[in-house]
């Protein structure tokens, strides 16, 4: 039996429908991840309305469907670290954490409890059998490729996973949904951070206000000092967690050439700004280095999901740290984002960005 993770969105719905049509026994599973009672949230992956759509699609596909309540785990593994990252001056990538900890860890374990051997999802990525076991590859549709978000998976998890949409394009998927008459056929894309319905700053502040015990020492709503690389104060900004390294807009500073956020210093409550060329770095320092299969030295690294990739050399350090040296300097090394290593279409692994080199 195959368990399909169903969010109620277009991609996972078509995944469920395709598998059901192929004749294998399929069970649909939805995860209640975030209780947003009182929050209007249509069109987001964890909204209650979407779970309703998942149930309807399961009926259309003729498969049983169950909702698993994983909100406590989601909060611990995804939401709290997300808030802590912002408070620490980083810009988190919660979707990677959700894939790693929720969809391919917890959900697979739950699915096995119910008698399923494998979990299928609507991710755009491919699992190909290699000489050393399953390999993770980019989707054929480069525009939709989501392999970046899956870099922390293990070979064991890949062996138990299915990505039926990895060889398809989004228009093909939508066409299939239309042909099948699925109720979600005209649904739009889900938002990037599914549990944040308003602004991120407001979300962070609301979480800290509601659960002060979880985020001790948080300094909220104090305007940060905007300084240049020499430490000179240029003005007063918004609270530091409002900023992202590489950000250009919304600084509110008058300068002869455009200014960018270079670094965020939560301790000092400072945001360092400078010119675009100051963003360039020859490499990055990473933590929690992970290899899906065998480690490699020569890779192409993507330092954010929409980054085109750059040739780089990975040097492993003790305690899971790593230095990644780029062939050409890159701008926007953003602490909290994932640096994902590729070789051609294959995802080798990656690490989490701590800071820049040089």
């Amino acid at each position: 039996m195959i368990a399909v993770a169903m969010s109620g969105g277009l991609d996972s719905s078509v995944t469920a429908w395709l598998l059901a049509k192929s004749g294998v026994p399929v069970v649909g599973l939805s995860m209640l991840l975030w209780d947003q009672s009182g929050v209007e949230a249509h069109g987001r992956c964890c909204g209650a309305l979407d779970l309703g759509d998942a149930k309807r699609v399961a009926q259309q596909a003729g498969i049983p469907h169950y909702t698993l309540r994983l909100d406590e785990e989601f909060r611990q593994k995804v939401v709290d670290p997300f808030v802590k990252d912002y408070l620490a001056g980083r810009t988190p990538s919660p979707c990677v954490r959700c894939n790693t900890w929720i969809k391919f860890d917890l959900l697979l374990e739950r699915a096995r409890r119910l008698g399923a051997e494998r979990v299928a999802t609507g991710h755009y990525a491919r699992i190909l059998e290699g000489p050393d076991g399953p390999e993770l590859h980019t989707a054929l549709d480069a525009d939709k490729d989501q392999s970046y978000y899956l870099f922390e998976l293990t070979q064991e998890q890949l062996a138990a996973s299915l990505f039926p949409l990895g060889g398809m394009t989004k228009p093909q998927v939508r066409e299939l949904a239309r042909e099948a008459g699925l109720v979600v056929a005209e649904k739009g894309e889900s938002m990037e951070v599914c549990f944040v319905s308003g602004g991120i700053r407001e979300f962070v502040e609301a979480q800290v206000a509601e659960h002060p015990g979880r985020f001790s020492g948080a300094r909220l709503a104090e305007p940060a000092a905007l300084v240049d690389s020499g430490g000179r104060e240029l003005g007063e900004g918004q609270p530091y967690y409002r900023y992202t390294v590489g950000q250009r807009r919304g600084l509110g500073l008058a300068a002869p050439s455009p200014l960018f956020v270079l670094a965020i210093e939560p301790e000092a409550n400072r945001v360092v700004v400078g010119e675009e060329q100051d963003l360039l770095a020859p490499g990055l320092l990473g933590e929690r280095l992970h290899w899906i299969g065998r480690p490699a030295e020569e890779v192409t690294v993507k330092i954010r999901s929409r980054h085109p990739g750059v040739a780089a050399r990975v040097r492993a350090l003790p305690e899971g740290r790593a230095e990644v040296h780029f062939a050409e300097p890159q701008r926007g090394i953003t602490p909290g984002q994932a640096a994902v290593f590729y070789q051609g279409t294959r995802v080798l692994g990656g690490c989490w960005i701590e800071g820049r080199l040089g």
Partner: protein
Amino acid sequence: MQTVYLDHNATTPLHPKAREAMLPWLGERHGNPSSIHRFGQAARNAVEEAREKVAALINARPPEIVFTASGTEGNNAVMLSLQTGHLVISSIEHPSIREGAARLERMGMAVTRVSPGPDGVVPARELIAALRLDTRLVCLMLANNELGTLQPVAEIAAACRERGIPVLCDAVQAVGKIPVDVRQLGVDYLVVGAHKFHGPLGAAALWVRKGRELTGLLVGGSQERRRRASTENVPAIAGFGAAAEAARVELDERRALLAGLRDRFEALLPERVPGAILHCTSSPRLPNTSHVAFPGVEGESLLIRLDLAGYAVSTGSACSSGMVEPSRTLLAIGLSRDEALSSLRISFGITNRPEEIDGFLDALVREVAELRRVAPAGVSA
């Protein structure tokens, strides 16, 4: 795949006689009971005929029956007319009572919640001791929806009557399974839901003792003697009446049949699934409900595995098991969170056959063993 339904406390299949009574109103006949013309007259007749049948089932007078859309509505209508004073409920009431009480509490009323003992029965003495001079209402269900345990409604109603305190009895789970007589119970309001005894969804009744008031939730029409505005749901009410009549005629036969199925299950369970714990078996209870804990097994996973194997059961009341949280009723009788999360409710129905019980036991043996194998840690934190 063969599917066996063992969740009759959630809802029941429609009785053929109820269906027969409804079909004309879903087909060639129609009419608004308030209309003067003959279409209206026929619809009025169908509603009043049903009222008589529902009244007969609980030994009430027809004018005392108010048709509603659900048991929840009846419970809400009685409770939410209160504004001040003190309210007593048991801690194992249906959410329509529990949440009604919480709302009244937020509006400034005092609420006392009386817990059951480990036997799943609310001690009458404790509830009576909670009554105050300003107590405006006591809410006590006749049979608990999860455990099936019967509550000492008559004894408590007698004590309340002496003090002039009205009693609302949610009898939704009891009617059609055991004899229910509003005069013997001595309560003031009693709620009945059609779909729990093979009537249709969307039809229920609130019995109001003559002389007691009811401020309706809905205004805007003189239906139901001005106690519930809305055009009557004629097809559902017609089906309700027929189901009530069938339940009245067949009651003894049904009780014996249900108890036979349940007793067969409960007699065979201990040797088939060692370690399974049956709850509240020595308490007075409904003839159709078994509540079982499977220690070390997560109830939600077991429910899903059984469903995939073709057997529909529940982990608690349907209202609380769309997503799984420990049942408050089980916590109230003193079970730990883990014990509560390892429990299943099996509620038999008159269409179940003994072979289905045997098949269900086979499936239980298989799925419990399999779950213990793949998730030996058992209940998750």
